[in-house]
């Protein structure tokens, strides 16, 4: 773990007292390698390093009896601050229905997360309707129908239609407010570089004016997380992120990458395939996980 490595780095100089700038450099290198191994994006690591270095050269480290511990604390606090902070609650529309749009790459976990979100909302007394706007992937509509059944949510689809924008518009316009108060729109997975399909998401956004646009990101994603998050955020101005597949043994550095480049909160962590496998996101726990 990083903690052990840093203790090693500083143990070497126990004999001759003061921590030098060279020791700090060595410690920074260990931190950089640990973050890269955890899949934090290279650019993000560089800017993080600079932020930490300034603090590490401060007095509380240089004169400390346990400089390794001090540096770890600075790194952990800096990570937690970067990933945490602001409100990660879901917005509720003052005028029902609240509209939530799920977006992301292929296979990230959007459809499954739609069901988990519906389950979470039902526990809060909400009445969700799930809308099938993935008209491309084989059996995608059927999958969402099954998911709606599993979580006891409403289901809206337009069999035979291949126009996601129309489907979304109709679902929101015709939503029976005596039965539902929240509409969750499941969209097809798409590449962030696919102009046509990204344009479709922009058109859905304009048509239904969602209160939330949640980008679902697979926690096992590597360096590319930055490219994906930047594109989706630049084109849609997302409101938050769901980190899926957190039940894997990934260290999950994509969390830091996505947060660093979008500035948007990570609102949930999904950790399983069942409908109740959705949890709040805890920045401090994530910081420890990334550091390994």
């Amino acid at each position, binding site marked *: 773990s990083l903690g052990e490595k840093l203790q090693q780095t500083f143990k070497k100089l126990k004999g001759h007292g003061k921590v030098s700038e060279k020791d700090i450099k060595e410690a920074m290198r260990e931190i950089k390698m640990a973050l890269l191994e955890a899949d934090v994006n290279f650019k993000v690591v560089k800017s993080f390093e600079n932020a930490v270095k300034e603090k590490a050269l401060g007095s509380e480290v240089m004169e400390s009896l346990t400089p390794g511990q001090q540096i770890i604390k600075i790194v952990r606090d800096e990570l937690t601050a970067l990933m945490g902070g602001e409100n990660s609650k879901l917005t509720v529309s003052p005028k029902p229905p609240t509209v939530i749009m799920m977006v992301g790459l292929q296979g990230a976990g959007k459809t499954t997360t739609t069901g988990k979100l519906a389950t979470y909302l039902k526990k809060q007394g909400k009445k969700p309707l799930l809308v099938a706007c993935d008209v491309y992937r084989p059996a995608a509509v059927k*999958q969402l129908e099954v998911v709606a059944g599993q979580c006891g949510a409403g289901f809206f689809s337009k069999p035979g239609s291949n126009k996601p924008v129309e489907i979304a518009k109709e679902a929101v316009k015709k939503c029976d407010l005596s039965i539902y108060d929240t509409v969750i729109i499941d969209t097809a997975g798409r590449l962030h570089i696919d102009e046509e399909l990204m344009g479709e998401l922009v058109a859905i956004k304009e048509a239904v004016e969602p209160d939330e646009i949640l980008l679902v990101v697979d926690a096992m994603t*590597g360096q590319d997380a930055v490219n994906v998050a930047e594109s989706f955020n630049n084109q849609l101005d997302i409101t938050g992120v769901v980190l899926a597949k957190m039940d894997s043994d*990934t260290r999950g550095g994509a969390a830091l990458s996505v947060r660093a480049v979008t500035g948007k909160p990570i609102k949930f962590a999904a950790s399983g395939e069942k409908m109740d496998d959705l949890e709040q996101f805890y920045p401090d726990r994530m910081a420890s996980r990334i550091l390994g």
Partner: protein
Amino acid sequence: FVAFNNIGEDLYEELEEALIFADLGAETAIALTNELRENVKTKRISEPEEAKKELYNIISEALSGDCSLNLSGKPAVIMVIGVNGVGKTTSIGKMTALLQSKGKKVILAAADTFRAAAIDQLAIWADRNNVTMIRHEEGSDPAAVVFDACAAAKSRNADVLICDTAGRLHNKKNLMQELEKIYRVIKRELPESSLEVLLALDATTGQNAVNQAEMFKETADITGIVLTKLDGTAKGGIVINIKKKLNIPVKFIGVGEGIEDLQEFDPEAFAKALLE
């Protein structure tokens, strides 16, 4: 790449960074860059462009080997495994079309009986290719589906049986045991058959792909990798670590969601695309 006029630290740093961005991981990136330094010295390379070409060679060398499918049995069996959402079912749909174009009679086994509408999804790919698919009810025992599919492959004189499986995280013991059971059923029911076990890996995956490969290899002896979603901006460089560590070759790459978007692996083309 910026125009470098000589080979110096700046060039090596830039190349190392490109390798890290390609998901090789810091350690492997540093190791390959050091190998390049050595080769630049021994081969007396002086032009930056030549140094870059040398890095291509190092990478494609690391990935070279037999990338062909072993279809020697009758029927030959292919099992596709991997974590959730990486592209197993879609890759099977594409592979079926590829094998049919080579004159093979293919039969499918819908052994993902867990995920919502997983059977329906594979059934659509079976229809697209006009092939038989063996299926049971959702929630039934996947090993029973495979047992029946092995019998059907023999009785219907199929050339190739391809088994879909449910996505599963490699760190879930019970799910890996289920996979092992499926593997054993194939070995038992078709002892004369060749068995290709293909691990589907999503090219956007970071260092965790090494854990995936290690754990899946322990459960069902992997013979090759299908690296999917190379049509995005991810480079999939982690397969270099996997090849070096576990000697598992990449056999196919996925470059889209259409039926023809599966290609046989070409190490040189991959190495070039990696550094673009």
